[in-house]
């Protein structure tokens, strides 16, 4: 790293995956879900109701471009074009700006549907820890939302808050969780009301001699306490599942488990794709019900 070059500690790893054991050409229904979030965008391809491939990347400053880039990435990996996709559902904060989507569905419904697929039909409570908000969702055995609550207006307790702390501590974001356990005594939480207050409090703690790990532990605890208060308002029913980027941070997940005295359902899938997966599953149901839709050519 040269002088003036700034390392981006907040930058999380973008990823893509395709199920090499299957061939989309043999599927009767091929659908896509696009989740344009405030921080990340995902495109998921579902073949006959089964996950086939996905692309997970950062959202840029333009929602239509982010949606186009996300779908391009997964289509290239799968060797398909938009003509091969029977229905596209857009979701997330930028869902109305997906130029090639046939329908937009809220991320609350899509996360519940995705969590039902990823965590099984026993999942009843879902915590979506997204880039700029958190949602506590209750669903039934089919993944239909029965109740939900969103967090307040601040980025504290969200993925963006974690990115701010990664940059401040100069610790790669993927290492924050493991390092938060490397403390002698679990510290009290920092401010959980506001990410700006949390940042200045963290700086003060560093100056007073706290180690970086201890400050990170205090921030993870704050984030856990904040989302637990949201969950307690709605009530936690077993099984409990977490979606969104923060689900990959064991420092927060373990602390939520400790506070709730409940274990989170584990999954082999990437927790960040839950919304897009749910959208693709909604699209699959719509095609089964009403048939395929013509591709929207304004697309990528």
């Amino acid at each position, binding site marked *: 790293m040269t002088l003036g070059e700034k390392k981006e500690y907040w930058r999380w790893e973008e990823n893509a995956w395709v199920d090499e054991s299957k061939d989309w050409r043999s599927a009767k229904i091929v659908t896509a879900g696009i989740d344009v979030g405030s921080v990340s965008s995902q495109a998921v391809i579902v073949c006959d109701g089964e996950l086939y491939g996905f692309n997970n990347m950062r959202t840029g400053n333009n929602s239509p471009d982010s949606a186009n880039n996300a779908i391009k990435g997964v289509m290239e990996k799968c060797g398909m074009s938009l003509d091969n996709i029977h229905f596209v559902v857009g979701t997330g904060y930028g869902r109305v700006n997906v130029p090639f989507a046939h329908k937009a*569905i*809220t991320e*609350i*419904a899509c996360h519940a549907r995705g969590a039902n697929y990823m965590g099984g039909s026993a999942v009843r409570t879902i915590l979506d820890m997204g880039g700029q908000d958190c949602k506590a969702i209750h669903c039934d055995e089919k993944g*239909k*939302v*029965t*109740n*939900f*609550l969103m967090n*307040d*207006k601040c980025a504290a307790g969200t993925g963006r808050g974690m990115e701010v702390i990664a940059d401040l501590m100069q610790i790669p974001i993927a290492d924050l969780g493991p390092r938060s356990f490397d403390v002698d005594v679990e510290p009290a939480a920092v401010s959980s009301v506001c990410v700006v207050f949390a940042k200045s409090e963290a700086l003060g703690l560093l100056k007073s001699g706290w180690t970086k790990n201890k400050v990170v532990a205090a921030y993870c605890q704050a984030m856990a306490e904040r989302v637990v208060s949201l969950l307690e308002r709605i009530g936690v029913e077993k099984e409990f599942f977490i979606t969104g980027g923060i689900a990959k941070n064991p420092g927060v997940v373990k602390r939520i488990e400790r506070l709730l005295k409940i274990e989170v359902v584990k999954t082999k899938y990437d927790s960040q794709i839950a919304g897009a997966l749910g959208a693709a599953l*909604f699209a699959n149901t719509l095609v089964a019900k009403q048939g395929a839709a013509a591709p929207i050519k304004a697309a990528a």
Partner: protein
Amino acid sequence: MIANYGYKDGSGEYYISIDTDKCIQCPVDRACTKACPKSMFEIMTDDYDDVVAAIKQTNRKTLAYDCTGCKPTGGYATLPCTAACTPGAIKHSW
């Protein structure tokens, strides 16, 4: 589905909850839309293609102020929206 509209801040929690399962087959012809003096309710199609009542986007962050006029201090013994909604789909958190 229970749809909660509103927010929480330093002064308290302000939520209107609409139980959409009770709202779907409204026997009182969506009386809430006419009962609300601020016209905050609208009819929309939700994610599951059910036609239900919802709070207009413009009112979701200002419920604490918009609903104040209908609280007991405003001269109402009961809230017009909850009184009009005989299936009991609408509830207030405060």
